[in-house]
């Protein structure tokens, strides 16, 4: 199972995402932002980091890179895509997910171990979790406050497209404690916290993040 991990200029957690794919049993495939080449991967991860230094708006420049045009087209065709942190920002800027990520309400970068509630256990990236399950994974961002117009938030919740919510404290002031959302077909998921940092007991606060990567391996088989 080949899972692509895109490196943009300024991507940082690409090595971590590739490691998580490997630990889950997949084959990580390095993808380069400047190529029009998805290398026949079965799913794509947009990793965390500061693509283009967060200049203009976080994720805005990366969303217009050559490879993202291919990702957008493939996602419309059902390719599973996961955006983590900066990757989530890129997906919102690319129009694959609704809403926007803005400066944390307290204006600081914040890194802490965060409890999340799984609201949807039927997306391509969350089937190995149970609905209502709480997972502990790191969050670390300066621009992670999820915002959208109230009507849009109502619609998102009405369509059951909130995948994760922060519990026991909202680390960045996100509207309605939203930590992650999904596309209408449940194939594209974006979230601010970092599941790839919770895949080994040695280095993470838990191994709760591994489920994202085991889930997608099954989603690819069943697709």
């Amino acid at each position, binding site marked *: 199972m080949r899972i692509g991990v895109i490196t943009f*200029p*300024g991507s*940082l*957690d690409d*090595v*971590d995402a590739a*490691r998580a794919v490997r630990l889950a049993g997949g084959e990580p495939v390095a993808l380069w932002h400047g190529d029009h080449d998805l290398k026949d991967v079965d799913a794509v991860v947009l990793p*965390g*980091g*500061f693509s*283009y*230094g*967060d*200049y203009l708006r976080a994720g805005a420049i990366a969303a217009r890179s050559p490879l993202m045009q291919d990702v957008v087209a493939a996602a419309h065709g059902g390719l599973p895509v996961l955006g983590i942190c900066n990757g989530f920002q890129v997906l919102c800027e690319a129009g694959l997910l609704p809403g926007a990520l803005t400066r944390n*309400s*307290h204006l*600081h*970068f*914040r*890194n*802490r171990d965060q409890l999340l509630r799984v609201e949807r256990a039927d997306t391509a990236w969350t089937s190995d979790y149970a609905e209502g399950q709480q997972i502990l994974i*790191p969050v*670390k961002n*300066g621009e992670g406050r999820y915002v959208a117009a109230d009507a849009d938030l109502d619609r998102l919740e009405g369509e059951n497209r909130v995948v994760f919510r922060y519990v026991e404290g909202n680390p960045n*002031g996100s509207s309605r404690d939203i930590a992650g959302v999904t596309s209408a077909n449940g194939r594209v998921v974006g979230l601010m916290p*970092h599941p*790839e*940092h919770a*895949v*080994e007991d*040695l*280095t*993470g606060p838990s191994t709760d993040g591994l489920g994202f990567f085991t889930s997608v391996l099954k989603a690819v088989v069943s697709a």
Partner: protein
Amino acid sequence: MSIDTVDVAAQNPDDEQPWAELGLKADEYARIREILGRRPTTAELAMYSVMWSEHCSYKSSKVHLRRFGDLPASDALLVGIGENAGVVDVGEGYAVTFKVESHNHPSYVEPYQGAATGVGGIVRDILTMGARPIAVMDSLRFGRADAPDTARVLPGVVAGVGGYGNCLGLPNVGGELLFDECYTGNPLVNALCVGVMKHEDVHLAKAEGAGNKVILFGARTGGDGIGGVSVLASETFDAEGPAKRPAVQVGDPFTEKLLIEACLELFAQDLVTGIQDLGGAGLSCATSELASAGTGGMHVDLETVPLRDSTLTPAEILMSESQERMCAIVEPGKVEQFLAVCRKWDVRAAVIGEVTDGDRLTVDWHGERIVDVPPRTVAHEGPVYERPMERPADLDALQADDPARLPRPTTPAELQAHWLAVVSSPDGADKSWVTEQYDRYVRGNTVLAQPEDAGVLRIDEQSNLGIALSLDGNARFARLDPYTGTRLNLAEAYRNVAATGATPLAVTNCLNFGSPENPEVMWQFAEAVRGLADGCRELGLPVTGGNVSLYNQTGDVAINPTPVIGVLGVHEDVRARIPSGWRNAGETVLLLGETRPEFGGSAWASVVHGHLGGRPPVVDLAAERSLAELLAALGRDGLVGSAHDLADGGLAQALTESALRYGTGARLALGDDAFTALFSESAARVVVTTTEPDRVRNVAAAAGVPVTDLGTTGGEALVLDGVLALPLAELRAAWSATLPALFGGPEHSTVFTVPAGTVPTS
């Protein structure tokens, strides 16, 4: 604008030059004239003035730093003092390079950019050695936590350290944050970076091979960071000229991230013969150091340097400290490949010159020669001073002011109040407000990070080889006795690394002192260096390099001598690391090491009595060594569940941190003198928890380390049998409220206050 060429200088030998304004002394200027056999050109004067500055030349400290070179040869040391950073063999073919540098004055002027570019500079030093940077740490000092200017400086510094390091993708795995009045007008920002490479990948800053090209790559050169030259610059100002530039550089971590990836790819493809980063003194430093270390000379055509500001003069270009730039020596046949790698990473690169036969560094500006110097005289043969030294006049009185006279708590309620006061003081309090602004997870190899005793990183995913790092610099001890205080800082960093189960391997340092022109400061400096050298000799560790920061003072008042010592250790299997927090109830709490009534320079004396006096604790490096070997054995055999070093705040601080980490209390018996047990700062002590106390006692007895049984973990309070019970909730409230209350944040809480009358205020 007329250019001051070598010919013009020769023909006009008597032109007035602003050497004094550039910081040169009369005899130094005379020596430059003697070296060149004429007056220097404007550009040459600029180069000499920055390269002969204290910062670049180490002219006051050099005679003392030679002590480090006299240490016995170490098998572990692959590259020693003199290169950008020392390199140490950590086994399995891996080499580790690490170094600390100060960015104190820029951080006071412009906290965010000063701190950010401090991180950027040390990261480039590590990169220059051929290594991938893998983590950073920061050691910070500010004035009183409640001083108005601390509220200006601290948030900016923390945001700058975080902003730059986070954007580079380097985990911040530890450091220090301490407060003292003496830093009010002169905060300290010391940043450490550590990198890893294979032995064969070590690169050096040398220009070799006539005909090889000199390539400048990274950011374009602008007018930032031209501090000392403002006078020189004004000389050439005219009505249309640029305004004076800020002396503090502005960082762009995104460009540095690209520079890192580009450099590592250049190294991997073997496209680089020699490499040097551009830091202090910019191109002046990089070109003269590369040429000086090589066998030939170098020629540079300065108009080929890519500029952000086309109005810069040649002297300004030579002195600019614009960030995120590197200089490489490349064989002509590899230039195309080199430029292609730079293009891939969107890194600007330009061939600006070449290595030449002969022994001159020459620089042309549009075909006219503006620099023609022997590079060694610029880079390596600057002035050296034997500054006068004198033991501080107040030291006898200070050392005689024994803390034994200070009132001690007489009731359990007072004892508890003192405990809470120490752990809720800005030095003792929870540092999450700061460390949450740092990414500690990126790259996925962080095994332990703040608030652990040391940062621990995995460097090989197959073998689980790892390293541990700690930075420590207690300035109260160094003020009372710089020789002993420096040895204590070395001992503490060594112990912190050992407490994780690692074997200490090598030492670096950042020596922050006042003005070397003050004989008392110079004496403190010499004593600190002597202490560190003697300590390293006794512990059998090499000093791999370091950094000296002088002139840290406000007016005539110097900071307390602040030697920050870094120790690197190795974990053969990082899975055996020992954390500092208590996870489980029912483990036996043991104190390893001996407690004596030592309160000189202690946190208790400082926090409760505002007192600094007496003698610092006794240093016993043989005991530290036995303790370290014991901890390594305990870790290897999995005999302990936790280990926490005892230092500032003594056992009271260590118990608090271990208990609050995972919310596990303990029931303890501290004997007849609970006060001494809690607040003494005797060195060579660690508190451990274990499910196998008998085995630990046996191993410790064999190692000659005294063991004291303190009690058992469990419950939701720290209970001292028959004395007091401190609920963890109350302890946590006191410990964690301090920094958010001082520096703000979304979750404001009230500062814990000591009940009136329980803490003497004398």
